[in-house]
């Protein structure tokens, strides 16, 4: 049987095409968007301001496309890790991080990742598939705490800029008046610095941007992050300097700290030189060791010292509190590798 298309994840423009093709009145597109993203309908049948015939027509061609999580784990600190099925029998994880003043969901944009960063658990799983915009925002919609969310960060599995079309589409749905109508200032999208896609993101979205730096030095960053072979951190920063981000839009740099590797005075100097004059902030992140990793996390006292040194240089620096480590929901630990069926006929 042919699989139906899904409605959830379609933009208003795409819905306009759908209703036109089905011979429905033009305004039905807005009504459908309303049910999908505002009224949070669970089924096409619930779309009660569409005629019965229209609902029947829609149901014939479409599924809603909402997917409940298949597993939830809760950390001692209240963080929750949700497992969501994706297409092709694959899975992704999302991490819900409650704090006093904010409730953040960290969403995935790909199943696995192609970027091969040395310190990342998702990277160790290789790449399996892109997520659709619907699968990305399904994570926002389908967690138990959906209505409590104050922030969404695209910092889960995958490199968002390597799936830029679907990521931009998901952002459009989250921030448009016809969609979730969130302020883009509640959304932060991370990247390791895929420059062309990052340009598109900067130009076509208004969400915050977080860059994974992890080293200011070329040779060192190349070993940690293969992307540095193609797009250097210098180029990424040079690109950022091309834009006026205004006062509301934030650029931040993520910096995972590796003991004896990237936590020296020379690194403080290197970072301050690199970011000179750029309005931004730096988040220092504890490294959560992954199996067989040659890297170890910098001790907390050293992180504090590093943070102080950067602050002295005029760079607003904070140490990000680690959350959900006991359920492997912390930064860099999301992975569904054990659920990926091994291809026995692989080529290496």
């Amino acid at each position, binding site marked *: 049987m042919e699989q139906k298309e899904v409605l959830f994840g379609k933009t208003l423009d795409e819905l306009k095409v759908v209703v036109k093709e089905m011979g429905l009145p033009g305004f039905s597109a807005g009504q459908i968007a309303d049910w999908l993203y505002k009224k949070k309908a669970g089924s096409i049948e619930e779309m009660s301001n569409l005629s019965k015939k229209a609902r029947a027509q829609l149901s014939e061609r479409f599924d809603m496309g909402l997917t409940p999580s298949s597993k939830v784990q809760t950390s001692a600190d209240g963080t929750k890790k949700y497992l969501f099925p994706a297409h092709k029998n694959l899975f992704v994880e999302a991490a819900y991080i409650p704090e006093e003043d904010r409730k953040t969901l960290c969403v995935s944009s790909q199943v696995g990742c*192609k970027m091969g960063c040395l310190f990342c658990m998702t990277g160790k799983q290789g790449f399996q598939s892109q997520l659709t915009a619907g699968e990305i925002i399904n994570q926002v919609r389908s967690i138990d705490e959906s209505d409590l969310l104050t922030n969404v960060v695209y910092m889960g599995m995958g490199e968002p800029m390597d799936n830029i079309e679907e990521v931009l589409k998901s952002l459009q749905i989250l921030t448009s008046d016809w969609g979730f109508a969130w302020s883009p200032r509640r959304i932060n999208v991370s990247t390791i610095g895929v420059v062309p896609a990052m340009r598109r993101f*900067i130009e076509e979205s208004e969400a915050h941007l977080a860059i994974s730096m992890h080293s200011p030095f070329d040779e060192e960053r190349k070993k940690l992050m293969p992307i540095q*072979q193609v797009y250097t951190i210098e180029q990424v920063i040079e690109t950022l300097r091309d834009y006026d981000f205004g006062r509301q839009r934030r650029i931040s740099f993520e910096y995972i700290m590796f003991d004896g590797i990237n936590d020296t005075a020379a690194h403080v100097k290197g970072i301050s030189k690199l970011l000179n004059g750029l309005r931004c902030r730096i988040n220092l992140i504890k490294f959560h060791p992954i199996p067989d990793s040659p890297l170890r996390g910098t001790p907390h006292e050293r992180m504090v010292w590093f943070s102080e040194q950067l602050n002295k240089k005029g760079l607003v620096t904070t140490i990000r509190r680690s959350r959900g480590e006991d359920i492997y929901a912390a930064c860099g630990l999301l992975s569904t590798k054990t659920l990926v069926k091994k291809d026995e006929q692989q080529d290496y």
Partner: protein
Amino acid sequence: MSQPVRRKKEVFPTKVLSNTEITPGVFSIEVERLHDFIPGQVVAAAINTSDPLRLYSIASGKEQPFLRLLYDVKPGGLLTPQMARLQKGDTLYVSAPFGRFTKAPDDAWWIATGTGIAPFLSMAESGQTQGPTLLQGARYLTQFYYADFFKTAFGERYLRFCTAEEHPEVIHGRLTNYLKESDAVQAGRKYYLCGNANMVVDVRDLLLERGVPFENIVAEIYF
């Protein structure tokens, strides 16, 4: 909305000299060469200047008069299905070369799968054939692109691993099994990896397990 000051990477029109399907679904395209490059660099390419650019490793030598790229046709992809239809005389837009997967030392091991062979082909075609050892993995024998060239250039330093088919000149089995067991894996050597992400992370993990420090592993990813 943030206003752009500068446009995306500049691309230049080049004439296609040839476009050959070297094995089903994999093509070698040769276009006019406009710039000098360092073997191991990439170019960004597109059929129309308004399309998003895609990156390809250069697969030709620095003295060769053309620029060669290898590519898999991705069904539903934006560029490669169209690229496969290009004929001699058609135009492909190509950026100036960039990237730094370069300067592999002479005693390095080069490890590749699929079209990840491209930067190594460029290095070898540029004359770097006396020291390196090339390990290439493939599912089928037809996927050892440019094998005849590498056999001549590298002799016994060209090791092929095929998982699905057997051939007297090819090791039947996984490249990763060889890396797990071979005494030839040495911690002090440099290892240059190029191919899909799954190969890069699996091989890197294996090398780390074998005691190779991460500083000695240089990876180029395909995305």
